[in-house]
């Protein structure tokens, strides 16, 4: 006898990364009862919060692949998306920089590929033109591809915005809820087993990212499909240390897109990533060799970084879920394409897999594709009369003009108390996140939402204060407060108590 089904849903989304949250937001438009489950204590903590934060133009993927179509379609959706969900998105454009004549030939090929993919707004620039636009660029530059539709964002903020809009429109989100197995009736998925109980569903949607292979295998789909975590390491530099106007890519090689240098929507400079295949999907460790590799790589594009190592304020690593799905079009020889399908061998299953770069860019297009697939499968997909596509953002003290800061503090004095002085994050900002539609219940969740502790002192000042605020707002002891979930508590016991 199966566990009793706690509650029945029309659709259960497995995995709360940017893709899962975007799918949730898209499904929230229709008369469906939707649940999103996330195994971590926050959404978007894996690939979605540790990547290059770029909305790609779409010249990279091979023409004919699903990656190429999703990238170009997705890119076009970002202006409206940013407007509706109210997150920071800047269509700054990007360069692919050539430093030899040979590289310039590769860049020209890339432009051709972009044209085949339907990427608008690309031109070739001479070395001199690039220098005049990007003062810090290497003097060796021989030319570049300029793609005006490239953009930058805060990918975690995008994920939160999508999830919050979904919740506003009736989607239920359960954190700390890990997928264990499917409940099958013959060839039909009728439920999802989790560590928090079993939930019934008519559709299960696999958006498990790094674990999408394991989830689809439980459904008996694509047993040959394997995700390999591809680690990318990054440096973050303090603000205003270097002027990078746009995204600078090196000319890609057979090994990948290479080490890029870009600005972020928060004004920092970000350098990375490298690309190292690993086995451990949870391990997000930076290595000495990796850091040296990306620093050397970045110097080739921006030589003045040589004396900026002291301006590094953070290093991090992210895992990208590299899959081995061949392109559906047999004419295209490509073995790491996205999977976006309703497989034939099982009913009630929407399967998304291998969504690595350009997954962030593609996320809205993938969500729309899921809606299309469901419609084709006969789902009524009746639009809600009261669906609200607009997500009102929370106010961030640091983003306001002084006059507005004054008004805010007058209204709510908690915004007058600065907790993170490097990033000007206030008690009001932090408390608002603790009580948000997707509540931030640990330090990293606060950090990712407010940028508290991301500056020069990296939490040295704010950490004990944020822990105290979390404890007070959640009504628990500071001993219960964690960095990123129950296994990562900050403190162990009160002082003056010895063990044994």
């Amino acid at each position, binding site marked *: 006898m199966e566990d009793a089904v706690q509650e029945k849903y029309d659709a259960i989304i497995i995995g709360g990364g940017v893709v899962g949250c975007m799918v949730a937001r898209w499904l929230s438009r229709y008369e469906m009862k939707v649940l999103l489950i996330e195994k971590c204590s926050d959404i978007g903590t894996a690939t979605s919060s540790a990547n290059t934060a770029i909305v790609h133009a779409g010249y990279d993927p091979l023409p004919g692949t699903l990656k190429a179509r999703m990238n170009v379609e997705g890119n076009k959706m970002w202006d409206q998306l940013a407007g509706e969900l109210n997150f920071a998105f800047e269509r700054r454009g990007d360069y692919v920089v050539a430093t030899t004549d040979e590289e310039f030939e590769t860049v020209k090929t890339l432009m051709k590929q972009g044209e085949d993919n339907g990427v608008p707004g690309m031109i070739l620039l001479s070395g001199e033109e690039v220098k005049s636009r990007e003062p810090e660029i290497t003097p060796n530059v021989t030319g570049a591809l300029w793609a005006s539709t490239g953009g930058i964002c805060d990918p975690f903020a995008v994920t939160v915005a999508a999830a919050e809009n979904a919740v506003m429109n009736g989607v239920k989100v359960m954190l700390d809820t890990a997928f264990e197995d499917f409940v099958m009736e013959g060839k039909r998925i009728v439920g999802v087993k989790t560590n928090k109980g079993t939930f019934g569903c008519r559709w299960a949607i696999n958006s498990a990212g790094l674990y999408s292979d394991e989830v689809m295998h439980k459904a008996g789909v694509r047993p040959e499909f394997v995700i390999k975590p591809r680690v990318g390491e990054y440096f973050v530099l303090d603000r205003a240390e270097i002027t990078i106007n746009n995204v600078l890519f090196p000319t890609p090689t057979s090994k990948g897109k290479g080490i890029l240098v870009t600005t972020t929507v928060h004004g920092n400079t970000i350098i990375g990533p490298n690309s190292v295949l690993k086995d451990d999907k949870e391990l997000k460790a930076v290595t000495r060799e990796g850091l040296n590799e990306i620093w050397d790589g970045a110097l080739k594009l921006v030589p003045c970084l040589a004396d900026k190592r002291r301006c590094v304020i953070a290093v991090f690593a992210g895992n990208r879920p590299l899959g081995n799905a061949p392109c559906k079009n047999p004419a295209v020889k490509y073995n790491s394409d996205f999977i976006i399908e309703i497989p034939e061998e099982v009913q009630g299953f929407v399967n998304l897999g291998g969504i690595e770069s350009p997954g962030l860019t593609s996320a809205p297009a993938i969500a729309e594709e899921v809606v299309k697939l469901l419609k084709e499968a006969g789902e009524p997909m009746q639009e809600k009369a009261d669906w609200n596509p607009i997500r009102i953002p929370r106010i961030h003290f640091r983003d306001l003009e002084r006059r507005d800061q004054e008004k805010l503090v*007058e209204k709510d004095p908690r915004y007058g108390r600065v907790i993170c002085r490097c990033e000007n994050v206030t008690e009001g900002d932090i408390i608002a996140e603790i009580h948000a539609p997707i509540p931030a219940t640990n330090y990293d969740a606060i950090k990712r939402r407010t940028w508290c502790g991301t500056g020069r002192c990296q939490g040295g000042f704010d*950490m004990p204060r944020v822990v105290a605020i979390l404890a007070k707002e959640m009504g628990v002891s500071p001993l219960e407060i964690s960095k990123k979930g129950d296994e*990562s508590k900050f403190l162990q016991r009160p002082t003056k108590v010895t063990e044994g």
Partner: protein
Amino acid sequence: MTKDLYDVVVIGSGPGGLAAAIAAKKNGADDVLIIERDVELGGILLQCIHNGFGVEIFKEDLPGPGYAQRFINEALSLGIDTLLDTMVLDINANRRLYVTSKRHGFKEIHSRAIVLAMGCRERTRAQINLPGSRPAGVYTAGTAQRWTNVEGYMPGSHFVILGSGDIGMIMARRLTFEGAKVERVLELMPYLTGLTRNYVQCLLDYDIPLQLHHTVNRIIGNHRVEAIESVQVDDRLQPIAGTEEIIPCDTLLLSVGLIPENELSKMAGVKIDPITNGPFVNDEFQTNVPGIFAAGNVVHVYDLVDWVTEAGLSAGASAARYAVAERQKEIRSIPMIAGENVRYIVPHRLDKSHMQEEDIRLQMRVRNPIEEPVWVEVHDGSNLITRKAEQYVRPGEMVTVELKPKHFAEVEKAQSLTVNIVKRK
């Protein structure tokens, strides 16, 4: 309640700030304000509950809070204003400060002189490019010190400390007192970076091993620190392959240096020495921005708190001298008031002392033409100081009148001067 204008505003209430405020008050500053971001005065001294403070100044061996309290008592008895739990968001070169707090909200404060005493911050994991994962349990020694000594919580039970800085060694002893095990102190350099007395009193006395020329090769553990891998380094400080050692622990403390905290200084246009990471200062601890002084660890990192206090006393006294001179300048400077039939006068203000040496020409325009003889009269409110005859005045033709050294005696007490243009009777 705080005022809008001060003689001296001190930012930070650690040993440097407290000393500066006290010295400012004792050297002629009337209104002195300390702005502190924490909820009480004393700065980092409050979490330094070990002894070793005051040997130079008091010839006594005091704990940090005790040392701070002597200066806090003195500051409060001198009537120095304080703004606690308050952050300075901005300072400009005209010495206007923009501050915010939960209790008082936003406030703009102007000061004749400012003493920067923000201290320093600890170097972080990122600044030493420490490889490995990012679990809970990696803290700067100062953060761990705050938790242990101020908030009353132990951040771990098995520690490795990277860096032989003073805070790290002192925390090694402190944590041992609390029943924790400090497995190892690792130091990248071939020498101790803190004081020898701390090595003896905090490590040797408690059998805590110190390994020089060693560093952390990587941090192990996805959620909480499970171990660190140590490694020996060569003369170029590069890891030597084959010397790696896994040390199980649940917490890694970093005591890898301090950096003067000068973000506010930069906002005010203060120039920073790339070697000290603190402002360039003259012998009065004045920065390149007139009226902005700096004292203590914000200038360069000290190893004894007594010396921070001395620097604070010196900077505070200099700031007071500057403020007093500014105040006198303000008293001497009086407004020129456009009176009857005068549209405006240039200069708008007059430093009376300048009249002692030279003629001051007041330039003005009239509101309405008077086509008959007039007096251009300068009054101080009660007395006529001087007057000049004109045959007529017209708005299109500038009118002037001179104040001469001989008028100084009459003007000396004036609060303002008014010019009227009236028909000669």
